[in-house]
């Protein structure tokens, strides 16, 4: 089974294959990010990267509720969203290494992966930078009547940006098929979100008359069930939604943020990893339901490890762009 194939019509009542597919996607993200750390540590990857490890259930649960032609916008912490929407690890690694074979021919890098073939309008390195784009994609979908939905992923740090509230107001006024997915991973860069966020988060959307829900972002089943309902509601023309997913960033703000004692404790990190890990929660539930056993999960892991290994090899050996490409694609 390939990682991008086999998507079926989403629904809250899903079969074993579907949970396994979500498991594979979450594990793909987890192992992808492990390799990113490795490439950074070995000084093979230029620049930095912001890892999605720990938050996998959000991207996977939401994207499983989407059609291939639905749109997403992503963030600086975007590898998970891109993979969950169907991007291939090999071309993603190539982009992270600045290679010609990358999704953006090396011009975007970790924070700017975009891919029209999977409806990915692009990761965005401005916090809340893509909220207008996602809302505009929903505006097009409504005008063109193509039944598409746009999902806008952002971290809780984006709650500090005024443009988010401007577009939520527009989306509700125009009844646009857009879902704002707020990933609250508890830290706005190096600051606990409670120090930057006043009041109640979903209430901010409710104030515009937008339907808002809160889910456990570590439980992919919970994320998926609510996301599916809100996406289909939007698709039917019933307007935008706001989905708050409570989650946790296992690592630092970026790969280089390794001394985190001044803003959070190792005990806290350990607790989330041991008790609230999205992969463990899903695999534990599936085992308890007799849907899968350890051998099956082990098999999946070695399969994905192999795929990721091949993808890294592809990217490392891929050529850089020609220097002459530097001024191509400034204008269409």
């Amino acid at each position, binding site marked *: 089974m390939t990682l991008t194939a086999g998507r079926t019509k989403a629904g809250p009542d899903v079969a074993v294959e579907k949970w396994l597919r979500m498991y594979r996607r979450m594990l793909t993200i987890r192992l992808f990010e492990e390799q990113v750390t490795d490439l950074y540590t070995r000084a093979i990857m230029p620049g930095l990267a912001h890892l999605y490890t720990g938050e996998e259930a959000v991207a996977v649960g939401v994207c499983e509720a989407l059609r291939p032609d639905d749109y997403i916008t992503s963030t600086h912490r975007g590898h998970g969203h891109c993979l969950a929407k169907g991007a291939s690890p090999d071309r993603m690694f190539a982009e992270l290494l600045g290679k010609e074979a990358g999704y953006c021919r090396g011009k975007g890098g970790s924070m700017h992966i975009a891919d*029209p073939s999977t409806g990915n309008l692009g990761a965005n390195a401005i916090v809340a930078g893509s909220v*207008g784009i996602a809302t*505009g*994609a929903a505006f097009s979908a409504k005008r063109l009547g193509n039944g598409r939905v746009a999902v806008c992923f952002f971290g809780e740090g984006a709650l500090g940006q005024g*443009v988010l509230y401007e*577009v939520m107001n527009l989306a509700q006024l125009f009844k646009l098929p857009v879902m704002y997915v707020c990933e609250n991973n508890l830290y706005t860069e190096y600051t606990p979100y409670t120090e930057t966020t006043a009041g109640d988060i979903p209430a901010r959307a409710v104030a515009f008359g937008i339907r808002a829900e809160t889910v456990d972002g570590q439980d992919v089943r919970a994320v998926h069930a609510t996301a599916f309902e809100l996406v289909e509601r939007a698709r039917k023309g019933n307007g935008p939604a706001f989905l708050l997913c409570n989650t946790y960033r296992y690592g630092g703000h970026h790969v280089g943020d390794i001394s985190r004692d001044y803003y959070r404790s190792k005990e806290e990190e350990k607790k989330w990893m041991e008790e609230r890990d999205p992969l463990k929660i899903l695999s534990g539930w599936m085992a308890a339901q007799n849907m899968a056993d350890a051998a099956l999960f082990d098999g999946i892991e070695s399969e994905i490890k192999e795929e990721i290994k091949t993808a890294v090899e592809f990217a490392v050996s891929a050529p850089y762009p020609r220097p002459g490409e530097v001024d191509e694609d*400034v*204008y*269409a």
Partner: protein
Amino acid sequence: MPEFAGRELTFAGAIREALAEEMRRDSRVCILGEDVAEAGTPFKVLSGLVEEFGSERVVDTPISEAGFTGLAVGAAMTGLRPVVDIMFGDFITLTMDQMVNQAAKVHYMSGGKWKVPMVLRTTLGASRRSGAQHSQSLHAWFSHIPGLKVVLPSTPYDAKGLLKSAIRDENPVVFFEDKMMYKLKGPVPVEEYTIPLGVADIKRQGDDITIVATSSMVQVALASAEMLDKIGVSAEVIDPRTTWPLDERTLIESAKKTSRAIVVDEGYARYGVTAEIASVIAEGAFHYLDAPVKRIGAMHVPIPFSPPLEDATVPSDRSIFEVASALCGRS
């Protein structure tokens, strides 16, 4: 500019006609902005469009410049061709992240995969007694950014032809209209035409000095050329029409011919459009120049309210005449 028998339109009428023609031609074209529908904007530039095209395509928005400009970026990427109306050029400050970090970079950052075919229409120009936050000419800001194109029409004919090209362009285009020109009348043919972006227009032929002018400064420069004519100085007036792409060749060739050049623009001279164009001419025509290239722009002050103060900040036919005649050794 070609000669046309018959029809004249105002600058505002030419813009309205360009929009109406493009909206009839292409159902993807839509307008977004504050009071663009029934109100037709405070300047009445868009009057009548909502009646023909409906509120689905002429969309009144809240007062949220960043929000609806950002929405337009996403809409442009996904199949529409939005024309955003930013009521006063001063308000572009509120759109800067959407235009500079998003619209201008999407195509490049995606390795050429996504496109942003949108137009942002806004105004520039002082002398309406509107004070410091409704009078600026900030087109240099966008001209600085790779990925954007910037258009500054100076006549009704140019406004119509350039706006049609801007709407058909596959890139984000920023279109600046001097609000003092909306009532200016000029010949506009009934027949379909477009004007390519990046082609300067020689508004007046001359031999002794080149005056490069943009937007409403073209009209001011033409008036100063008449004054210069009376003292025996033949001025050539060139309108680049777009600050990017910039028709460097036409500017340089004219300066080579006349050996003297002045650049006039209503934006601030410091680090502004006049600085860039003067540099292009100085580099390209260095061996032909008999004098340094001079620049005339807005004074480096916030635009004041009081009429005699405001008038002092803007280039005038008299100020251009004085600089030009001095440059030609006539004063």
